[in-house]
């Protein structure tokens, strides 16, 4: 039963990783940018919600109502002011730009909030601690189920948006050939800015769930970026449903590793990532990216 519990908890944890990864996947799929500040943006969102929660005594989930539009706008402005220029500088410039942005965000958060660790778990009420007891050795936490359901909804919603809406069509067209998209009247830069806005909003959602589930501080971003990146690669670069799958594989690997020995938890996730990267599947994914395939 320990193994069953490990797999179930891994799937629930995978929901969080998928939520972290979907914005990264979207930005890579549409713009070919690996946003190295993605984890720090998630933590920035968590700090924004933490500020609203402590100042106004709000439940963190209610605090998401004002925080998400703020982060959407921030994402849009971020692209218009920083990323759009760096995209014109070739493939390496956005990497350097987002790396710099990550450092700026971390230091700004340290300056504004100090290095103390904090959590939103206490403010979230019973949902952060409650669970359904299935058997003596298996239980499902409310929060884990909520995170997984949110991940499925967000990824499903994004997939639906990409497949069924006019904006989604524009986004897929721009992802496939931005130059030609502009030649049929699509403002590629505006499409990119909206994709960035969505990615930043989903990162915020993930950051808040992380903050409710455990602890966070100004330097939590890079670790989450690594997990998100691993989930994206395992699931297939730029594929949204693949990202959910990748998050679950990573989560299950970590919980099974922890069941064997607690110190193997993170290592097991990294090993699965490396195995996938070295496998024919991983090599074919990288080849697909070179051919310009997208979501």
């Amino acid at each position, binding site marked *: 039963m320990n193994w069953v519990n490990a797999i179930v908890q891994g799937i629930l944890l995978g929901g969080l990783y998928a939520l972290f990864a979907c914005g990264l996947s979207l930005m890579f799929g549409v713009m070919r940018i690996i946003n190295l500040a993605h984890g720090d943006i998630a933590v920035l969102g968590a700090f924004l919600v933490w500020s609203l929660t402590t100042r106004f005594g709000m439940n963190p989930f209610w605090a998401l109502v004002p925080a998400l539009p703020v982060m959407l706008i921030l994402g849009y402005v971020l692209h218009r002011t920083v990323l759009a220029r760096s995209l014109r500088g070739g493939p390496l410039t956005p990497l350097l730009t987002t790396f710099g942005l990550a450092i700026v965000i971390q230091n700004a958060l340290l300056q504004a909030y100090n290095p103390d660790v904090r959590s939103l778990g206490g403010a979230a009420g019973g949902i952060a601690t409650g669970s359904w007891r299935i058997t003596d050795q298996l239980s499902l936490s409310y929060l884990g189920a909520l995170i997984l359901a949110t991940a499925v909804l967000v990824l499903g919603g994004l997939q639906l948006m990409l497949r069924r809406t*006019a904006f989604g*069509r524009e986004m*897929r*067209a721009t992802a*496939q050939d931005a130059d030609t998209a*502009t*030649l*049929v*009247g699509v403002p590629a830069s505006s499409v990119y800015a909206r994709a960035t806005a969505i990615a930043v909003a989903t990162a915020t959602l993930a950051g808040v769930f992380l903050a409710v589930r455990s602890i966070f501080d100004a330097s939590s971003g890079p670790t989450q970026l690594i997990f998100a990146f691993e989930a994206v690669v395992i699931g297939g670069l730029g594929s949204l449903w693949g990202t959910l799958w990748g998050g679950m594989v990573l989560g299950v690997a970590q919980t099974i590793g922890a069941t064997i020995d607690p110190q193997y938890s993170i290592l097991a996730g990294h090993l699965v990532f490396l195995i996938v990267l070295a496998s024919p599947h991983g090599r074919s994914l990288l080849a697909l990216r070179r051919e310009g395939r997208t979501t």
Partner: protein
Amino acid sequence: MTLLRAENVEARHGLLPAVRGISFGIAEGEVLALIGANGAGKTTLLRTLAGAHPLTNGQITYDGSDLAGIPAHQRVRRGIAYVPEGRRLFPELTVEENLLVAGRRAQPGPWHLESVLAAFPALGPLRDRPAAKLSGGQQQATAIARALMTNPRLLMIDEVSLGLSPKAVEEVYACMTVLRDSGATVVLVEQDLGRALSTSDRVVCLLEGRIVLDADTEGLSREEVVTAYFGFHQARRS
């Protein structure tokens, strides 16, 4: 009435001049064939007019207003459509999705999904097929249909028949008849001189980035065109 006028247009690839001080105009409703050997500057000229390539020098006026600083997607909304060389469809989008992407921000006009599919009946059964799975001729027809979805006043088609089978070329030129009947102003780049002369009202021939022939097709001999095309001597008529 002149719909588009280029005055001393220059464009470069890096330091290499590709278009050197070209001046010409296109009248509304005219079908103009742009011909020239490989590297003559035809594609660069069209891309510059479409806003996809930077203008180094000169001026482009369209419908009386200067196009300087206007990006490609806004030129499309003003009625300038460009079908790029190699069709450049969105390969994973279906035929219908390729058309709808172009139609979303178009000016109101006669062309919409149903009218375009009626004008190109061969595309109707293919509307749910990904563009990557179309034949060359079907792709070119879709590319022209996609450009029509923007309700253009000026349609520029690069390398109309390049890489197509003879049957596909026939299909594509059937599309050209639709364009001519609709009264559209068309600039087409065509390597097949016979096709170019029979389809167009006027021929402009480029050689090494300069216009060496600008003449009405009526009364123009094939020898004059070939002479200009290969640069045996520079001829200019109007």
